[in-house]
């Protein structure tokens, strides 16, 4: 055992490269993970922490978990995380949420790659097939459950998913992968790391995938995606590092849009980000700026929706320790978010946002810590350009509005013993209206002065989410296992609802056109618990199991209808969901199986009625064989128990059984 440990550690040390004792400012996740024997994260407070010590409810998916999952897309990997809900609408469109509230184009989840938002800010959702990241270049995926707006800002309300890629300075990641299988599924990826002397390293990746659409009568043939990313890390001085990242992605999918129709959607996204980190006498300073561009074309039967959205962000943070017990983080952020109106063109909706945040973490003892964080955001909304005739919000001046919001996070972590940890957390998150909701979406349903319109609402209020959670974690040394029990309550005020033609705005003077707009429609309370456990058994076996129960109660605001506004989350969210997984590995073989269960839930059909989707269980598995060092042949399957299964809308497309063969080489 000792020799195995030393050998393994030595190999890891060689593969991972040096943690140079003189330099290095960005976090060397690999070395820290090797030291503490657990993953390390910055996603809870902004400062590096062991995942077991974070004042947040967090699960970390490691690269080993990703490799053995047999999955080729992120939603499938995420569906096996405790408390995560997925709605699979088509082969290329999935929506993800945490602990209920999932919906078409789910807006409650903040998704990031290395701290850069990748959810699409026009409607606040994530096009998972369009993310410019290859599974092989991911170091870990950090899943935070509950609001974390004080650190991340808007939309971090249901949870945060931060995808951390390998840092080319520390991680020599090289891989080639190709796969093919049923449904004409084929694709591949390549990742390479280059070093330019001792001071600069770059990782480059490309990937592409194509698969036939699930059986349909929509003339939808295939979904595909292609992406590339470049990540350059340069050590400017012993204490200063510059990291530059750029990405391009294109994809096509058959999307389920909020009206519950399938629409072919083409996405093109690009980004560029620069992060400068420097250790100074005033702490670790980090300056970051990035620009995201989105070009989204949805060819619906009622017109071509062409969204063009740009988000520019600049932030500055200082992370420092005061004495031996206090860690603090101060940050400011500026954001500009801009979108054209569509399909009725001629206008632009935008906002400028200035935010300031602070975090303080106090280690009262080596067993008790307290963390407080707060953030103030000042948003300035604006509209320019023309407003087509017949729209009832007929003046750009109506968009000259400001909104001030406050978000907060607090957590107490108490290590009762070396094996028992209690955690109490509170989060207050803000879900801002999106640019589509503010007025980017501008549709004339039938021409003429009396024809109905669909438009934005400059008076929409942000939703405020308050979350309270208690959790208990226990390590069972003798069993080489751990277990966790959590109880939580979450309350949402001013839930944003979809347009409702049964409750339109009506013009007060001729022509008496009427217009459906987005509106704040309800308040909602969710309560529940989660139980999870995992462990290892001698001989190379591992296992895990979890179950999460949620109960949601929605109350409509005066004059509103839960079904009409599609905010009846108590009826659309499953009450319980769970996972069981087991696996075995030796030097050559790795075999894993996964069962995911979801209780019955609801979804809206194209007529606006609520359909009941049945409970379901899915079976997935992977078997991999190492042909030679770094060369692996694997067979994996998803939805193995059923040829076709409802995992979204009962009357929609059905998820199909899928088998893939993949060959990968890493070095």
């Amino acid at each position, binding site marked *: 055992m000792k020799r195995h440990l030393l050998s393994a*550690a030595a190999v890891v040390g060689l593969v991972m490269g040096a943690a140079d*004792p003189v330099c290095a400012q960005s976090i060397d996740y690999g*070395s820290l993970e090797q030291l503490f024997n657990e993953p390390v994260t910055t996603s809870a407070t902004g400062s590096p922490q062991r995942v077991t010590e974070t004042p947040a409810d967090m699960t970390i998916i490691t690269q080993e978990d990703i490799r053995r999952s047999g999955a080729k897309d992120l939603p499938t990997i995420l569906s096996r995380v405790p408390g995560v809900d997925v709605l699979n609408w088509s082969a290329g469109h999935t929506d993800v949420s945490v602990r209920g509230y999932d919906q078409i184009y789910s807006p409650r989840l903040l998704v990031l790659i290395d701290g850069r938002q990748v959810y699409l800010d026009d409607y606040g959702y994530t096009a998972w097939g369009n993310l410019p990241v290859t599974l092989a270049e991911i170091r870990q995926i950090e899943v935070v459950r509950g609001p974390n707006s004080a650190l991340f800002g808007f939309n971090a309300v249901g949870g945060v998913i931060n995808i951390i890629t390998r840092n080319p300075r520390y991680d020599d990641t090289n891989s080639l992968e190709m796969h093919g299988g049923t449904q004409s599924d084929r694709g591949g990826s390549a990742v390479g790391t280059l070093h330019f002397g001792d001071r600069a390293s770059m990782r480059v990746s490309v990937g592409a995938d194509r698969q036939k659409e699930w059986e349909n009568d929509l003339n939808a043939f295939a979904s595909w995606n292609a992406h590339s990313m470049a990540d350059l890390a340069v050590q400017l001085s012993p204490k200063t590092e510059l990291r530059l990242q750029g990405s391009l992605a294109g994809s096509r999918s058959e999307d389920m849009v909020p009206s519950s129709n399938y629409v072919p959607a083409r996405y093109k996204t690009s980004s560029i980000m620069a992060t400068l980190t420097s250790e100074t006498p005033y702490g670790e300073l980090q300056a970051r700026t990035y620009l995201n561009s989105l070009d989204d074309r949805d060819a619906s039967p009622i017109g071509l929706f062409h969204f063009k959205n740009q988000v520019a962000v600049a932030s500055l943070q200082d992370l420092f320790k005061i004495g031996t017990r206090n860690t603090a983080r101060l940050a400011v952020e500026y954001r500009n978010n801009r979108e054209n109106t569509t399909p009725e063109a001629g206008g632009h909706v935008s906002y400028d946002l200035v935010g300031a945040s602070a975090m303080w973490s106090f280690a009262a003892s080596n067993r008790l810590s307290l963390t407080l964080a707060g953030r103030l955001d000042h948003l300035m909304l604006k509209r320019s350009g023309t407003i087509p005739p017949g729209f009832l919000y007929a003046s750009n001046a109506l968009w000259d509005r400001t909104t001030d919001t406050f978000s907060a996070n607090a957590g107490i972590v108490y290590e009762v013993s070396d094996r028992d940890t209690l955690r109490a957390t509170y989060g207050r998150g803000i879900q801002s209206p999106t640019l589509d909701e503010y007025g980017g979406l501008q549709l004339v349903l039938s021409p003429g002065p009396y024809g109905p319109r669909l438009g934005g609402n400059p008076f929409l209020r942000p939703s405020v989410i308050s979350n309270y959670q208690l959790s208990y974690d226990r390590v069972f040394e003798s069993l080489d296992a751990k277990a966790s029990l959590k109880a939580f309550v979450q309350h949402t005020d001013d839930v944003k609802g979809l347009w409702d033609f049964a409750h339109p705005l009506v013009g007060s003077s001729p022509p008496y056109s009427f217009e459906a707009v987005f509106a704040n429609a309800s308040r909602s309370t969710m309560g529940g618990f989660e139980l999870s456990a995992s462990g290892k058994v001698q001989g190379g076996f591992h296992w895990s199991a979890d179950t999460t129960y949620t109960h949601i109660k929605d109350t409509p605001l005066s004059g509103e209808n839960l079904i009409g506004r599609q905010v009846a989350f108590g009826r659309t969210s499953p009450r319980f969901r769970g996972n069981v997984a087991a696996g075995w590995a030796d030097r050559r073989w790795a075999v894993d199986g996964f069962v995911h269960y979801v209780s019955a839930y609801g979804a809206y059909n194209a007529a606006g009625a609520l359909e009941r989707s049945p409970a379901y269980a899915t079976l997935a598995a992977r078997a991999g064989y190492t042909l030679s060092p770094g060369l692996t042949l694997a067979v994996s399957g998803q939805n193995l128990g059923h040829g076709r299964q409802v995992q979204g809308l009962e009357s929609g497309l059905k998820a199909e059984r899928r088998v893939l063969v993949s060959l990968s080489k890493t070095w």
Partner: protein
Amino acid sequence: MMLRAYLKAVATAVCASAFALLSPASASADPVKDIQATARVLTFLENDLGARVVIGVVFDPARSESVAEKNAIIAAIGDGYSVGRLTVVGKPMEAGAIHGVKVIFVTHGVDFAAVGAETRAKRIIVVGSDFACVRSGACAIGIATDPTVQIVVNRNALAAAGAALKAAFRMMIHEI
């Protein structure tokens, strides 16, 4: 009915967990893991110790536990234990005869107060797995790896040894 069965299953699992909680857990030190962690911690120092570091393994020949721990550590290191570009080599030495090294590891049973007094002027980084040594200031770094990795640093003692830890690493450990 299904909900009732589900809740019953969950309650059973919770009760099983509570029963396990009542079982006393045993704790034991693991000198092999401790020295491996020590080597990793050295890579997070601001100081450049060089590519090859000799760690003096301090023991008391009159105490069997100290001798056993020393033997286990020296055997674990062997000809050298590498972490990235750093290789550590172990050299046994008795308290009172500490010399020629920048880092020492104090085994259990050694009079750490005496070791602290001996090493202070020599600016040697003293590491041990007994946190009482850290609290007293004789040890600069305390490392225990069983059941979980715990690292406690005495900032004054570390500074007196002319050493400092990287900022990001300091946020992950306990300092006194």
